């Protein structure tokens, strides 16, 4: 059997800076962005034809700044759709050290537009890792104690096989020739990686939003391989409303004339307008009405009175445009189609005769679920449904709904109750697993 190879490729490549056509905003705009801790004070004034780096969000697809494991053509991934992906590539980051018993591994599952760069600077944007509040030395997922793994989901664009990856059959990116994938396919690919690392049982699988869906899929598919699980702001199925939001995003991308049926990589243009609009629409769903009002209200951007124009007159417009424009620098439009689709198909109970309790029946995994009061995308009722199923299945489960006005995005933010709950849960699970405290001699 051919052995998968692990190579670090990123260091060999020059890191090209992606240039986006942006107009500089006057200094007083700093105030608005300072509220968000955003150091990058650029915003799109004219979302015109993309003058974007030819690779755009595809820059990391084949030669990522990450560890990579390539499974050979002879070991295809058979997707839920019944199609093969081969060769399969999984790009991942690790933090901390695996102990000799290989019992301290924590797998982090990222959300829709996240990636494997959970606790290091992002190779394209230079921004800090997306979960540095949770993962790092002395953090709840303590890299002095645990061996942390985070892989890019398949269908993504940061090095794991996705629509921007080269299709070996054609020598061109897959585009829409990649089979449509599911959350279970993503988890299958992660399980391959975990096998490759020689780890039988993960100490913990944790993630928020779509990451939480993967955590649930892990616990259902591989109950023996998950000692404890933390699905945060998650759901056991994607709601009709959420499918609807995703469809708006996909239609925005597909309506962009530069999308060209997904074959934009054959040209110099990217469907950046469509992808930016998709991101803007989605971003609204990650926040709450209260938080938007608190941060922006009806304040105007760089003017004392309305100019009666269609420029970004309100601060919220400027903020959303910034979110859209910065997103296209690092994300591939086709990946956005694939990954949103995977979430749409997710309905864990459906795989178990309609009973979510059956998905977790007899599970020995310890669960800790967290939801947020102002999250209307993955509301608390979703987490409660999972808790009820886990209780019915006799599993050990903790659940807390945290009061915050930060909306769905709260799982990514510095929310003290989230961090203390996670730390308490993990510390007690680690004691039960016999893992020594950080810094202690084993």
């Amino acid at each position, binding site marked *: 059997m051919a052995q998968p190879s692990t190579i670090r490729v990123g260091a060999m490549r020059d890191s090209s800076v992606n240039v986006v056509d942006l107009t500089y905003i006057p200094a007083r705009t700093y105030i608005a962005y300072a509220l968000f801790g955003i150091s990058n004070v650029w915003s799109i004034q004219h979302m015109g034809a993309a003058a974007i780096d030819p690779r755009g969000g595809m820059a990391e697809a084949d030669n990522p700044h990450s560890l990579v494991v390539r499974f050979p053509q002879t070991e295809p991934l058979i997707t839920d759709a019944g199609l093969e992906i081969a060769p399969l590539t999984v790009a991942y980051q690790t933090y901390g050290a695996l102990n000799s018993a290989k019992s301290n591994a924590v797998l982090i599952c990222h959300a829709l537009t996240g990636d494997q760069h959970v606790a290091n600077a992002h190779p394209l944007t230079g921004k800090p890792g997306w979960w540095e509040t949770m993962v790092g030395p002395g953090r709840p997922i303590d890299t002095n104690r645990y061996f942390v793994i985070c892989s890019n989901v398949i269908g993504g664009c940061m090095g794991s096989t996705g629509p921007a990856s080269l299709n070996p059959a054609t020598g061109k990116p897959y585009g829409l020739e990649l089979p449509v994938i599911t959350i279970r396919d993503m988890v299958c690919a992660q399980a391959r990686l975990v096998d490759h690392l020689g780890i039988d049982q993960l100490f913990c699988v944790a993630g928020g939003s779509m990451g939480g869906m993967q955590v649930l899929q892990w616990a259902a598919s591989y109950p023996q391989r998950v000692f404890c699980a933390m699905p945060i702001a998650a759901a056991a199925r994607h709601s009709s409303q959420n499918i609807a939001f995703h469809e708006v995003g996909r239609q925005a991308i597909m309506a962009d004339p530069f999308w060209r049926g997904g074959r934009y990589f054959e040209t110099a243009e990217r469907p950046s307008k469509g992808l930016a609009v998709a991101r803007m629409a989605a971003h609204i769903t990650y926040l709450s009405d209260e938080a938007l009002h608190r941060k922006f209200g009806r304040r105007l951007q760089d003017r004392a009175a309305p100019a009666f124009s269609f420029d970004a007159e309100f601060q919220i417009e400027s903020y959303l445009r910034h979110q859209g424009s910065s997103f296209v620098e690092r994300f591939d439009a086709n990946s956005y189609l694939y990954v949103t689709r995977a979430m749409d198909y997710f309905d864990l109970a459906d795989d178990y005769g309609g009973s979510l309790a059956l998905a977790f029946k007899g599970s020995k995994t310890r669960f800790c679920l967290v939801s947020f009061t102002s999250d209307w995308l993955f509301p608390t009722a979703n987490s409660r449904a999972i808790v009820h199923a886990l209780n019915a299945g006799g599993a*050990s489960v*903790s659940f807390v709904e945290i009061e915050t006005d930060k909306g769905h995005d709260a799982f990514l933010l510095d929310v003290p109750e989230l961090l203390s709950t996670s730390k*308490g849960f993990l510390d007690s699970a680690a004691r039960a697993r016999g893992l020594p405290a950080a810094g202690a001699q084993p």
Partner: protein
Amino acid sequence: MSALADAVDAARAAQASARVDLLLIAGMVEPHSRVLDIGCGEGELLRLLAESRNVDARGMELSQRGVNDCVAKGLSVIQGDADMDLADYPDDSFDYVILSQTIQATRHPRVVLEHMLRIGRRAIVSFPNFGHWKIRAQLGFRGRMPVTSNLSFAWYDTPNIHFCTIRDFVSLTQDLSIEIERAVALDTTGARVRVNAPWWFWNLFGEQAVFLLKRGK
């Protein structure tokens, strides 16, 4: 009762600072059983049960702070409301379902009690006795709603909306064909009211009561 007394003593030794009623409850729980504590607060009883009785203890608590404290201590606790969320638990999923000093704060005590004995093979309920002589005296002689050290809320801001006396509670168990396996009343000093005393005596001198219940035949 001597085995119970021994167990209480053992538990007391294990956790000298714990509340007397919690120690009594812990003494009623068989070791190595599965327990659900409804309204577990900061997890004092769960911890006592886990440490002194070696049980698989789960909790339910309404307040976010309480749940956070519990989870941070490594206890399995979910945020939930006894009135709303017990219906979602399957039959026979626990050996004991415990409601400690909480039944008087539920909206539907009768329904909660029925759920407890559906979910668990046994139920343990502790509650303040509204028939205690001090309470009767405040209402009877002063004509005021009772406020005691044990029940320190004024009538307009109390969470306790369904007070009962020991006799009321016994009457409810009869209505629901529930079998009382054990009952203990504690006086104001936390000492047990004489075991062989009649109900009226308990109802007058018991400041709080603890009942171990099981489904009637």
